[in-house]
């Protein structure tokens, strides 16, 4: 009999896992709590390091889905239980399924930048997040700040909600450094006369061509990288954002006015992941991200046979790493179901 796999979460990881499982000959149901599939990628304008458009990337991933995959959107999982050698899954709207295996692809949630109170997100109009900036890029509208002015200076704050004990997030969100470099270049292309500053504590350019892009940002686009964390931002009487930061290489405090301040909001474990792992009885969820049985050798396996993970629900990843992880998860499921 054809084995059935339920994939929970229809972002890039869920879409890619479903397509791969279908190609491997399994019956797949992809469940999504929102009305539409695509996750965060729906709102993302362009991906580093090649500036591939988010829309094109999503279309390309979605194109691989075939008609045999059942997509169940607008369904919030309310029941998930292992029964003998299968799983029962139910949704808030009465939807129910049985599955031979389950793949958790619930993704991440963006760090709520309001929690870094000292940066003034939600209080000062010209403090926005990296996600807000992608929406601004995607809108195709004229690049102006929230007061309708072309900013003469733009600042990017790295590590907002990442590597920060004050907000109880010790992890690095991995993608924000290179995203800031990418976004800084995009802003400079739109506003060639603007001065662009990136305030960072480390630059983690781990991926192929990331370092080159960082170098290009400095040499070709004259983007200023200042090593230091912001202590605060405030608003002046003209609506500019006044940031206070220490340049730790010069050993001097700085006060800089910018017309737009972009907070590089990090990845956090999704609250919904926690409720699913609780339903399943998964214990190894140390900080809200699901811990695989072995991070090196068995990164898609959980401690419950038949329950697999893919994508950012097990930790921050780039889109390319997420897609590779999703394909890897599909093979792990296939191995499990055929054994």
């Amino acid at each position, binding site marked *: 009999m054809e084995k059935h796999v339920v994939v929970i979460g229809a972002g890039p990881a869920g879409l890619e896992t479903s397509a791969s499982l279908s190609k491997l000959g399994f019956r797949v149901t992809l469940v999504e709590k929102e009305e539409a599939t695509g996750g965060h990628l729906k709102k993302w304008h362009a991906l580093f390091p090649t500036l591939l458009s988010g829309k094109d990337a999503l279309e390309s991933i979605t194109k691989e889905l075939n008609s045999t995959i059942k997509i169940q959107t607008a369904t919030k999982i309310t029941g998930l239980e292992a029964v003998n050698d299968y799983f029962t899954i139910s949704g808030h709207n009465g939807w129910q399924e049985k599955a031979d295996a389950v793949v958790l692809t619930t993704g991440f949630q963006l760090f709520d930048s309001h929690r870094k109170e000292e940066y003034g997100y939600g*209080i000062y*109009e010209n403090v926005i997040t990296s996600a807000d900036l992608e929406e601004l890029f995607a809108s195709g509208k004229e690049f102006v700040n929230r007061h309708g002015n072309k900013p003469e200076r733009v600042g990017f704050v790295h590590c907002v909600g990442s590597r920060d004990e004050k907000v109880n997030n010790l992890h690095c969100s991995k993608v924000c450094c290179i995203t800031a470099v990418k976004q800084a270049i995009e802003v400079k292309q739109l506003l060639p006369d603007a001065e662009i500053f990136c305030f960072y504590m480390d630059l983690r350019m781990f991926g192929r061509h990331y370092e080159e892009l960082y170098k290009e940002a400095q040499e070709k686009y004259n983007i200023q990288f200042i090593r230091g964390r912001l202590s605060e931002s405030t*608003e002046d009487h003209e609506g500019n954002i006044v940031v206070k930061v220490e340049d730790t290489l010069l050993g001097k405090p700085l006060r800089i006015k910018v017309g737009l301040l972009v907070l590089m909001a990090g990845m956090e474990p999704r609250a919904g992941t926690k409720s699913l792992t609780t339903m399943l009885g998964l214990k190894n969820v140390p900080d809200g991200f699901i811990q695989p049985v072995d991070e090196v050798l068995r990164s898609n396996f959980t401690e419950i046979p038949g329950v697999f993970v893919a994508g950012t629900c097990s930790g921050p990843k780039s889109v390319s790493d997420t897609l590779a992880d999703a394909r890897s998860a599909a093979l792990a499921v296939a191995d499990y179901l055929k054994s």
Partner: protein
Amino acid sequence: MKLEGKRLIWQDYQKEIADDHYFYARSCIRQTFFPGAEAIFIKIVKDELGKDIHDNQHHTSCTGIGYHSDVVPFDTTMTVIARQFALMTEAGYENYAASCITSFGLYTEVLETWHHFPEKEAQIREYLFKATGREFNKPKNLAHASDIVYKFRHQIAAKAKYKLVDKNTGEPLKVVEHIGCHYSKMFPHKGIGGAEYPYVLSGMIEAWGGEVIDYPERRHCCGFGFRQYVVQANRGFSLSCSKKKFDSMEPYEPDMIITNCPGCPMFLDRWQYALSEMEGKTYGKNNQGIPVFTYEEVAGMIMGYDPWEIGLQVHQVPAEPLLDKIGIPYDASRKFKGKNGEDLGMPESPSYLKFYAE
């Protein structure tokens, strides 16, 4: 600026403030700097709000200035504070109300230390008993006096004769609120509104008809900062801090500054004189300066208390233009008269800052 963003944060930083029966601990320096402030607080709490407040003559300094200047060890500080708590216990009170921001911060720090290190509390109890034979209960509620005025700000507004409004235009006065650093910067959850956007004074200003100014150097220290001032060689830094704040608030044309710390009104008031003498620069319109008040003085002003009874004549930056703007009457001829009408003598007029006398 989106006020709703601040309101969301304020919701997260509310605290319990006792409703009645306060043991009041005065500040070491306020009665010299702004002699009316504490008396107004006691009068408002007792006579206007009908609450019970105990003003104890035996308490001492909390050692805060010495502690933060690194000349008093923490064990000594904790033992002195334990004695204050013993006085409260002996007087039959459970709600401690500190007049001073640094004391409030230090009491909070001591209680937090004892919470996390109970063995330290036991040791301090032993020290106190050996030294004085006293024992104590910890306060059930610890508040800064400004928390109490904040709690009853609407009742005060209901009894007030005046509002923080320009009597000629009907427009709200533009008010700078300055919070003492030790109020909530160390323990954000112990202050109304938290550390980044404290609401304790903003709440009073809103309730009393004024409009709060949010300016870039709002969070910056007033310039007291203990070592900036206590160490004489650092006083240039103290002045620089104050100047930075004045320069930053100047474009907003504030009508007044309200503070809740002993040192802040002193430095924001007196340094306006020092800066004017050094640089010929005055802030505010017509060389009048920007008047600086304690929140108790402002409460007293809107209640219609005689400005000279609440000590406004000892301010360096004159209060008269603001009193005129609100419409609060005063007898200019009594400004430098003592309690019994004797002439106290007139201070020398500054070179630049406008001086008001009969």
